[in-house]
């Protein structure tokens, strides 16, 4: 496979919890992202799944340098970008762009579509010379499937799907190599979701983009991703190719997550055996010791409370099941009757 375009090593983002008005004292930290490592290869789509509050969006913000990492490294083509600032950071931003979740708040309502998509060129004038900008904006509109004549319209004159296309066009303007999609379709109708997903795939092959695709809809992630990472409470619990995760999940959390995917066939729905997790996701300010999933896991033993399971290929597993999984007792779940 191609070379790693992005490497994340032990990335940590803690939000300090303080007490006091004048003299602030740190009393703890919300461990939103707590030691995550993975790599993204050129031209690949990495899906990140996990329930709400597990740190997916924080991960995206830290990768975009919108939030400073507490520790760890983000290597873009071998260069650590997590501590950059000023002009160096600005030039790195050309390579990593983002598509946002909510197409209604991600476009400035006071700017025309032409100004919104043209703004990247104003911030980075070296990308498109002044005279060519209007043409460049119209080309981008065409690329994302919008009528180039809409350049003078305002966002409120578009539908949700069209707005998301505008957001994608803005992300593409600087010709980035990586696009981080933070739940890009979860605010859209199902019919429009498919169009936007297809557009993203088409753009990927056209411009050789690498995607990091954050979502909580497992079927969409499976459709678009080459590899999938599963997050739980600030940690990556399992990562592997889509077959490895979807057909041979070894981590109990992944198995529980997959068993919750809605099945359109009522007969199959009756017969399948669902894992129903008890309890809520624990507070990221005070996560459980050892394995973070142990409080809700049916396999948990004393060892899980004492020893943090590492994200590595478990030695006991062979074949498709042999992929990174952070569990002391990994095994492929045998479906009762498929």
């Amino acid at each position, binding site marked *: 496979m191609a070379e790693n375009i992005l490497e994340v090593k032990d990335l940590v983002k803690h939000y300090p919890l303080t007490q006091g008005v004048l003299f602030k004292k740190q009393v703890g930290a919300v461990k939103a992202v707590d030691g995550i490592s993975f790599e993204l290869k050129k031209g690949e789509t990495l899906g990140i799944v996990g329930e709400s509050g597990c740190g997916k969006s924080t991960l995206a913000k830290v990768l975009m340098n919108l939030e400073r990492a507490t520790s760890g490294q983000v290597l873009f083509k071998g260069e650590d970008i997590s501590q950059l600032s000023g002009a160096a950071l600005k030039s790195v931003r050309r390579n990593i762009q983002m598509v946002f979740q909510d197409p209604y708040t991600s476009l*400035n309502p006071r700017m*025309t579509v032409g100004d919104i998509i043209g703004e990247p060129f104003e911030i980075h004038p070296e990308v498109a010379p002044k005279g060519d900008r209007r043409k460049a904006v119209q080309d981008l509109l065409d690329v994302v499937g919008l009528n180039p*004549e809409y350049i003078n319209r305002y966002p409120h004159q578009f539908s949700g799907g069209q707005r998301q296309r505008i957001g994608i066009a803005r992300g593409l303007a600087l010709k980035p190599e990586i696009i981080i999609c933070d739940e890009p379709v979860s605010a859209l109708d199902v019919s429009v979701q498919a169009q936007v997903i297809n557009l993203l795939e088409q753009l990927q092959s056209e411009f050789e983009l690498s995607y990091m695709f954050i979502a909580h809809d497992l079927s969409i992630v499976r459709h678009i991703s080459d590899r999938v990472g599963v997050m739980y409470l600030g940690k990556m619990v399992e990562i592997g190719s889509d077959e490895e995760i979807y057909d041979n999940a070894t981590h109990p959390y992944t198995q529980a997550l997959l068993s919750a995917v809605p099945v359109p066939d009522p007969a199959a729905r009756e017969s399948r055996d669902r894992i129903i997790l008890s309890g809520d996701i624990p507070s990221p300010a005070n996560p459980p010791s050892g394995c973070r999933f142990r409080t809700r896991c049916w396999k948990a033993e004393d060892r899980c409370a004492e020893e943090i399971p590492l994200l590595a290929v478990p030695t006991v597993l062979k074949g498709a099941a042999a992929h990174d999984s952070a569990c002391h007792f990994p095994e492929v779940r045998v479906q009762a009757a498929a």
Partner: protein
Amino acid sequence: MPDLTEKKTSGDIPAQRTADAPAPKQEKARSLGSDAWHDLRRKPIFVISALLILLLVVIAIAPGLFTSVDPRAGDLRNHYLTKPNYGSFFQADWFGYDLQGRSIYARVIYGARASVVVGICVTAGVTILGGITGMLAGYFGGWIDTIISRVTDIFFGIPLLLGALVILNAFTERTIWSVVFALVALGWTQMTRVMRGSVITVKQADFVTAAKALGAGTTRILFKHILPNAIAPVIVVATIALGGYIATEATLSFLGIGLQDPTISWGIDINSAQKVIRTAPFALFFPAGMLSLTVLAFIMLGDAVRDALDPKLR
């Protein structure tokens, strides 16, 4: 910008790519601002108040168009109960005379200038000062916000009339500008609060994050993204407050701590007329009526503007 719809036809665009795009219509792009203006023009309240304010501004700029009588010239043969001179139109003293024999009509006309100047200058002052401080406090947060917010709280604690009394007493000669200074100094905190709240709401929007992700600088984010989206509530509060500042100026002048006699102000005239309210109530009625009408016009305008700018009604 040139209108592209004229040059290109829809047939040029690849069909499969315009999946969820409706057929292009020959329509003008309308911003939220022009939508609001479109709404406003159809509102009778807006039209009435705007015409009234326009009339007031014309009176303030060119009082000579409405009367040729000198408002400071007093003929001591005239007094409240003298039958007014209804000579030619521009010479007529429609509302009679005050205690010193000066034409009440001419004084009401000339008094508009002080009110309008104070109202507009104070509003401009508090909007600029409060807008800047509110934007800084709201956007940067942290210790900047703490300092600005506490200073705001301190100014909010000063009673307006008491504060104005102290400030205006410090001037040996009180002009329109000293009144403007006192009202701006005591009134900017209201705008700071409105602006701060509005900026805090806007800065959390995804389009601000998107601009940061593109590498936009603080100036660009503040003036292109945050200010245009945060300014609407400030405009509304400022328009409504404008009427309030005019009333406050009249109050200060009435109490004798605002404008002083060579300057003509409705407040001063209301003060001198209240002494003869039993014998000549009309002497109080005209300056007070003009004052109420002016304040009402600005408050109605503010109401109409709020309805037009409020995105929740859209």
